[in-house]
């Protein structure tokens, strides 16, 4: 793994305006939220899109598997492959947003997106229907690992190409590895390029070379394990797909070029928990390897700090108040009765706990922030309720900008 400490620099070092999340929302056309599962990525994406709309932009948020109540808020009861507009009165109840802004949302339907792509690149309807009806293709579109990540980016590219939106905020699937997301197009083309299956498809052209004979034997062995029907399906797919790879490859490259352009910004979302920070660091490194800079860091669910308080001092205070004698708790502070001493000691213990937690979170985040370099950082406090209505989303957006 490369040292990303200096690698985050691409665009920031190239002299783009000193980024804040507000300026990213004003100037970029594409914002990709990435991070591990359970850190509030979808919520962050929705809040960013709302903020963009409120700033007068024509925004769309592409969500992936949002929690049910958030989905309801965004009017996304089911998968939809086209963006639908959210009524302004819902996200601008008090009529304070900049005029002209619009807000759209969609929930990614990876399978239909893939189908559309096949229809677009097929030479004719016959080729398209042969592919779409193939069992092996249905597995690729429906369940191949990496397909959802790939289609999220494809949908982004498609929305960008329509020119209808000036701010596209994309949520990414909660996959463990950034690799899946960055490599998804390449993974598919690698699958299509698989040497053994290519050899099998072209016995006539390849003649009776050793490779082909070996491949045939190999295939028979696989068929013995999983059954011949499965292999027939695979071969039918490769035959039907022939000639389309180039179109897919070109589009995938254009998509990666868009992500790497000045129009796009990556926002890394995390929580201050140790495991989330480890994952976030991995994401930052992988993005840097792909020459994609993280331009903003959003830390959700940060616990409050209580300036001046020191856990060791607080715990000592609690100990002074209470003398533990076997099961019995007595008091030493003579001016307090037993109940008051117990209560005060509890307060000291609690503050020490919370402050220790806050210090630990700060330490975790310091390492991450140093690693990704100078980027806009926003901390969103631990909120009293899960975020699933427009008021709460606006409150989150307020912390973000």
């Amino acid at each position, binding site marked *: 793994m490369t040292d990303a400490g200096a690698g985050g620099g691409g665009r920031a070092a190239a002299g783009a305006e000193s980024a804040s999340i507000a300026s990213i929302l004003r100037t970029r056309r594409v914002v990709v939220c990435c991070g*591990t*599962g*359970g850190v509030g990525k979808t919520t962050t994406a929705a809040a960013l899109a709302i903020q963009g709309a409120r700033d007068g932009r024509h925004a769309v948020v592409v969500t992936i*598997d949002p*929690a049910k109540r958030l989905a309801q808020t965004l009017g996304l009861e089911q998968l939809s492959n086209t963006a639908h507009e959210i009524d302004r009165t819902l996200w601008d109840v008090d009529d304070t947003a900049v005029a002209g802004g619009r807000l759209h949302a969609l929930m990614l339907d990876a399978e239909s997106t893939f189908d559309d792509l096949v229809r677009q690149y097929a030479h004719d309807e016959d080729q398209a229907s042969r592919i779409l009806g193939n069992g*092996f293709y249905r*597995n690729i579109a*429906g369940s*191949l690992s990496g397909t959802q990540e790939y289609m999220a980016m494809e949908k982004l590219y498609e929305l960008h190409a329509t020119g209808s939106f000036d701010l596209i905020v994309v949520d990414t699937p*909660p996959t*463990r*590895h950034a690799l899946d997301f960055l490599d998804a197009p390449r993974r598919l083309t*690698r*699958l299509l390029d*698989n*040497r*053994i*299956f290519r050899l099998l498809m072209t016995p006539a052209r390849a003649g009776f070379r050793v490779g082909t004979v070996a491949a045939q034997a*190999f295939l028979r*062995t*696989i068929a*013995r*394990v*999983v*059954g011949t029907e*499965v*292999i027939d399906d*695979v071969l039918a797919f490769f035959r039907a797909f022939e000639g389309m790879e180039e179109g897919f490859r070109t589009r995938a490259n254009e998509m990666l070029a868009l992500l790497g352009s000045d129009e796009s910004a990556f926002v890394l979302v995390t929580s201050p928990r*140790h*495991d989330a920070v480890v994952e976030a660091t991995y994401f930052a490194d992988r993005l840097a390897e792909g020459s994609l800079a993280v331009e903003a860091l959003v830390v959700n669910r940060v616990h*409050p700090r*209580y300036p*001046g308080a020191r856990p*060791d*001092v*607080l715990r000592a*205070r609690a100990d002074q108040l209470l003398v533990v004698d076997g099961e019995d708790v007595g008091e030493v*502070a003579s*001016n*307090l009765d037993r*109940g*008051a001493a*117990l*209560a*005060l*000691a*509890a*307060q*000291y*213990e*609690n*503050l020490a*706990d*919370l402050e*220790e937690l806050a210090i*630990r979170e700060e330490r975790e985040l310091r390492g991450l922030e140093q690693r990704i370099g100078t980027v806009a950082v926003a901390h969103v406090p*631990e909120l*009293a*309720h*899960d975020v699933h209505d427009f008021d709460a989303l606006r409150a989150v957006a307020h912390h973000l900008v």
Partner: protein
Amino acid sequence: MAGKGGVGKTTVTAAMSVAAARAGMSVLIVEVEGKSGLAACFGHPPLAYAEAELRPGVRARTLTPDDALVEYLEDHGLRRISRRLASSGALEVVATAVPGMKDILVLGKVKQLERGGVADLILIDAPAAGHAVSFLLSAQGLLDAVRVGPIRKQAADVVELLTDPARCQVMLVTLPEETPVTELVETAFQIEDRAGLALGPVVVNGCVPSIAGLDTATVTLPDPHTNGTDGDATAATLAAAARFRLDLERRQQEQCDRLAHALPLPQIRLPFLFTADIGPAEIDTLADALAGGIDALDPVAQP
């Protein structure tokens, strides 16, 4: 052990292994996803395919589909092509053609370990989130898709293992928060109804422990020391912090109640640890809580 990402599934798996080892059982933890903090919980370097002892009575290993496939083919007299199949990328193609095949290879290996009596208890640190359900459904799905061949036999054996409550149970892990609880309830019904697996108690991780006396402390109390200097805190700060915790405890309790209402399964609550990152000492603390929770279960409900 199953649960959505970020709920501490791996930590709970580690604590479970320690609790079982203390009760005199030999435990094998099986990691089915490449990367996890499991070994780090024991202060041990990352795991490999070969077994490693993490502490007395607790062994662990990883189990990847590629490794399982090579072993499977070798066991079936196909040694010559096994490496080539895994290394050529053909597995990727075959696995795409037969969804769930990777999961079946892994679960088939688990079944083999179980039948071989390698440990008193095998803990599988299952894939995160929605994949846990498809992981457990893979065998049934494969039975429907593949009509003949050794893979079908493998799938049938796996279904038999998974659906026998005396041999296999799923312990779900969650946090006392709205979305994780909602998703856990959905997952529970899918695992029980669609995959036909038995559910053990639910582990609610990260419950903020109560401090005796804190609930009476929301009124500002007089104390000559609370003047806010030298690392001390003012009475107002103490009161604000107390309110924060009490509010958090109340919200967590609401979620535990909601979970109990939606899912009639016993709950084992594990404490939130304020002080340190998860290491051997913290795993011991959680194992204590887990063992206590298991002891407190209705004995009739236990197998």
